[in-house]
């Protein structure tokens, strides 16, 4: 004969047991449902993102097409009058200088590669290409009369930055790692000579065993600046009078 007090005690624990099991089963079912919801939402967002990217690409293609048409109209307009021809030439110069259009011409291609020197006891940071190295090459090329420069196909415009971030370099907001290919359009001989001045850029880079190769060419193509430009602070100064 079982002790009734024992029975009641066991019954209490059984109440607790039944309660816990039921609540647990309910919660687990609800939690898996919530997880599925979250996963579904993530999938939805992924599809949305893909669609937006495709829209962005097709809009960009449209923009290129409109620019081509615009150029046609400009050319047609300039064919009709000398004043228009003058304006068109001004416009083209401004476009080249501001990096808004693809350009081609004679020039040099400079390639910078990290030092292959494996002598491990010296500070490794000295043998890696820094933003300053690229900046020095670009500066020297502009100084030697380059009219357009691109680094790893990023066109250098007035607001371009070349900056070290960790162990990669950001150019125009995009990250790049070595090798760095710097293209410049100008007089190939002058550009090459400027880089090769004794104790100049090339000598300094070679001192740290950074690989530098300079190649002259008659036809270098440099692409346009690929970003957007919406100035928030600078406004053109209105010149009064003539």
């Amino acid at each position, binding site marked *: 004969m*079982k*002790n*009734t*007090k*024992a*029975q*009641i*005690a*066991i*019954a*209490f*624990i*059984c*109440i*607790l*047991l*039944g*309660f*816990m*099991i*039921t*609540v*647990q089963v*309910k*919660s*687990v079912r*609800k*939690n898996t449902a919530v997880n599925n919801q979250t996963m579904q939402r993530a999938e939805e967002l992924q599809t949305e993102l893909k669609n937006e990217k495709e829209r962005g690409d097709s809009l960009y293609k449209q923009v290129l097409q409109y620019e081509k048409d615009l150029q046609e109209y400009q050319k047609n307009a300039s064919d009709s009058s000398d004043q228009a021809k003058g304006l068109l030439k001004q416009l083209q110069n401004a476009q080249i200088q501001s990096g808004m259009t693809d350009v081609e011409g004679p020039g040099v291609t400079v390639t910078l590669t990290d030092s292959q020197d494996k002598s491990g006891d010296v500070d490794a940071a000295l043998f890696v290409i820094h933003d300053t190295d690229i900046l020095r090459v670009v500066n020297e090329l502009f100084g030697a009369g380059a009219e357009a420069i691109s680094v790893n196909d990023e066109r250098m415009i007035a607001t371009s930055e070349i900056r070290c971030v960790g162990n990669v370099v950001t150019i125009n907001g995009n990250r790049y790692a070595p090798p760095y290919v710097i293209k410049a359009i100008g007089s190939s001989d002058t550009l090459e000579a400027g880089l090769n001045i004794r104790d100049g850029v090339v000598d300094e880079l070679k001192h740290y065993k950074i690989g530098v190769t300079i190649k002259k060419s008659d036809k270098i193509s440099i692409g346009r600046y690929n970003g957007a430009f919406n100035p928030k602070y600078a406004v053109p100064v209105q010149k009064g009078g003539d």
Partner: protein
Amino acid sequence: MIPFIGLLIGIAIGIFTPYHISSQYSSYVAIAILAALDSVFGGIAASLQKTFNMKIFISGFFGNALLAAGLTFIGKKLDVDIYLAAVIVFGTRLFQNFAVIRRFLLNKYVKRDNI
């Protein structure tokens, strides 16, 4: 029989409770369920053998549940499934006690048959 009715009451209360356990705590409740099962079976086996002790039973349930929950907590912090120790022990005792109950019930009916 009374424990079984208790179980049904517990399930009924659980169905009508609007509360939910968030997913962080569900592993603790699971191990507490196992501790409760172990205590119930241990209690039934003890009362059949007339060795039931109220203090051991009550303290056993709460103590085991707390210890098992503590093991789960530490295991989560250490990223080692220490709670498995509790699972194995509870499981082993569950089956041992169940064997005792089974033997007792079978003996009861077999003896009656012989009479």
